[in-house]
C-alpha cells in the first residue's frame, strides 16, 4: 500500500532547525498513516468476515458448518443451494423472487413518479399553505411508523386489500416516504433555474418544463431514490409479515423466515445458501451503483 502523508506547510528552506522539524513531522505522518491503515484494515476484516464466512459456509456440508471458523469448505457442495431452492413448500425460491419483484417494481416506480411531482411542487412553486405542508413533510419524516401501523391495517382490511401486495406499495405511490420527497426537494433547490425559465419564455407550460427540462437534470437523484427504495423493499420483513398470509404470495424475506422455522433443526446449509441467494440482488445492485448510494446519503442524509 502506498501511504500519502499530507504535504507539510511551506517552510523556509534555509532554516536547519525547520528542516529537522519537517523531517520528524514526515516520519510522524508516515507512522500515523500506517496506524490508520492497520486500524482500517482490522476493522474492515472484522466487519466483513461474517459475510465472507456466510458465503463460504453456504457451500459446506451440514457437519462442517459448526466445526471450523475458516470460510473455505473442505468438501464444497451445492447441496444447500439445490435443496434450499426447492423449499419444503410446493413453491421454490424462483416463485418467491418473482413475488418480491411484484412488490418492488410498482413501489419503486410509484415512489419515483410521486416524489418527482411533489418535490417539483415544493421546490418551484409558491402557494397558500406551503409552509404548513412542508412542516408536515418534515414531521412525517420523524413520525414513527409504529403509531400508524394498526389503523392502516384496519383501513386496508376495509379496502379488501389483505393478502394482496397493495398495502405494501400504494402508500409509497402517494409520496408516502417523506424522506425521499425531502431528498429530491434538497436536490432540486440546488439546481440552477435558468433552463426552466428559458423553457417558460419559449412557451412551455409547467408540466412540459418538468418533463423535458427538470427530469433529465434530476436523473442522478431519482436513481438514488430508486436504489434506496429497492434495497429497503427487498429487506422489508414486517410489512409482508403483517399483510401477506398465503405462502404462494410470500416474498423472499418471508420465505426465508419460513425455511428457518421448518428446516432449521439440522439442514443449516440450506438456510445459509438461501440467505446468500436473497442477499445477492441487493449486493449486485449496490456494487454496480455505489456512487449513487454515497451521493444520495450525502445530499439527503439517509437513515439506515
Amino acid at each position: 500500500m502506498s501511504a500519502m502523508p499530507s504535504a507539510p506547510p511551506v517552510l523556509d528552506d534555509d532554516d536547519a532547525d525547520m528542516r529537522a522539524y519537517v523531517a520528524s513531522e514526515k516520519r510522524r505522518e508516515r507512522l500515523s498513516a500506517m496506524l490508520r491503515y492497520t486500524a482500517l484494515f482490522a476493522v474492515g476484516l472484522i466487519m466483513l468476515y461474517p459475510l465472507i464466512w456466510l458465503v463460504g459456509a453456504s457451500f459446506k456440508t451440514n457437519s462442517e458448518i459448526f466445526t471450523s471458523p475458516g470460510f473455505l469448505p473442505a468438501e464444497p457442495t451445492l447441496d444447500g443451494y439445490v435443496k434450499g431452492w426447492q423449499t419444503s413448500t410446493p413453491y421454490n425460491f424462483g416463485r418467491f423472487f418473482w413475488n418480491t419483484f411484484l412488490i418492488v417494481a410498482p413501489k419503486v416506480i410509484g415512489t419515483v413518479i410521486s416524489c418527482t411531482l411533489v418535490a417539483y411542487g415544493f421546490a418551484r412553486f409558491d402557494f397558500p399553505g406551503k409552509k404548513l405542508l412542508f412542516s408536515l413533510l418534515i414531521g412525517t419524516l420523524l413520525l414513527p411508523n409504529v403509531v400508524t401501523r394498526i389503523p392502516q391495517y384496519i383501513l386496508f382490511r376495509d379496502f379488501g386489500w389483505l393478502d394482496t401486495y397493495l398495502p405494501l406499495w400504494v402508500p409509497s405511490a402517494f409520496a408516502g416516504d417523506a424522506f425521499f420527497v425531502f431528498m429530491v426537494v434538497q436536490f432540486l433547490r440546488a439546481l440552477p433555474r435558468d433552463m426552466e425559465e428559458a423553457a417558460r419564455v419559449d412557451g412551455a407550460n409547467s408540466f412540459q418544463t418538468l418533463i423535458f427540462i427538470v427530469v433529465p437534470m434530476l436523473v442522478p437523484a431519482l436513481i438514488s431514490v430508486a436504489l434506496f427504495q429497492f434495497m429497503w423493499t427487498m429487506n422489508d420483513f414486517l410489512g409482508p409479515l403483517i399483510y401477506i398470509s398465503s405462502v404462494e404470495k410470500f416474498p423472499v424475506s418471508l420465505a426465508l423466515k419460513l425455511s428457518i422455522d421448518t428446516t432449521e433443526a439440522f439442514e443449516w446449509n440450506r438456510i445459509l445458501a438461501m440467505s446468500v441467494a436473497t442477499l445477492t440482488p441487493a449486493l449486485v445492485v449496490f456494487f454496480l451503483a455505489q456512487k449513487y448510494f454515497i451521493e444520495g446519503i450525502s445530499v439527503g442524509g439517509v437513515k439506515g
Partner: protein
Amino acid sequence: MGHSRYLGLLYLAPYIIGLLVFTALPFLASLYLSFTDYGLMNAPAWVGADNYLHLFTRDRTFMRSLSVTLIYVATTVPLKLAFALFIAAILNYKLSFINFFRTAYYVPSILGGSVAIAVLWRYIFAEAGLVNMALFAVGLDPVNWLGDPDLALFTITLLRVWQFGSAMVIFLAALQSIDKSLYEAAAIDGAGKATTFIFVTLPLITPVIFFNLVMQMVQAFQEFNGPYIIFNNGGPLKAAYLLPLYIYEEAFKKFEMGYASAIAWVLFVIIMVLTVVAFVTSRKWVYYAGDKRS
C-alpha cells in the same frame, strides 16, 4: 411567473391525498383506538384510560419490554454514533483506497436490515458458532451469547452497531467539508491533534451529530427484525423483547387492537419527547455557521 397560485398544490395532490388517507387518518385513529377495547370482530368500545392504567400498573410484560427497549436504545445509539465518528475521523485523511474502505464499511448498512443477516447473526453467535470458535482459538471460554439473558440484548446491539456505515458516510461528508484553513490556524496556535479534534472539529460537525442522533434514535426505538428473527420469542427471560415485538404480538397475533394502540402511543410519546428534548437542547450545543438557527 404567469401561472395560478394554486398550480403548486396540483403537483402536491398525491402527497396531500396520501398524507390524509395513509398518515393523518391512521394517526388520529390510533390515538382513539388506544382508549378502546377493540378485537376486530366487535366495534371499538370506549374504555377511557383503562388500557394505559393496565399497562403501567398490572402489565409486567410491558414494564419488562419498556425497560429492555430503553436500555437497548441507550446503548445502541451512542455506541453506533461513536464508532461511526471514530472511523470517519480515521478515513478523513489523505489515504489511498479511501473509497475502497468507505464501500467496505457501508456494505453492512445496505444488507443489515434483511432477514438473511439476522439469520447470519443466529449462526455466528450460536454456542458452536463463529464467534465462540474465534474465542476458543485465542484461548478464551465460549460465551452463551443468545441464551444468556444478560447478553441477548447486546447481540442485537452489536448487529446495529455493525451497520454504522450510513452514519459514517454522513460524518465523513461533514468532516470533508470543514475549511482546511481552520486546521492551519489551530496548528499555528500550537494545538495538538486531539485538542484540534475536540475544540475545532467536533463543534463544526454538531449539526450532523444532531441529525444522526435523532434519526438513529427514532429508528432504534422501532427495531423489530433483529430480535424477532434471532430469538423466536423475545429471547431468554424476554431479555430482547423490545416494544415493537410486543405491539406486533398484541395487534397481529392476539388482535387486541385497542391495547396494542395504547402501547404504540406510549412508544410514540417517548420518541416524541426525546426528539423535542434533542431539538430544544440543540440550541445550546449545535453550532450553525453564521449563527443561523433553524
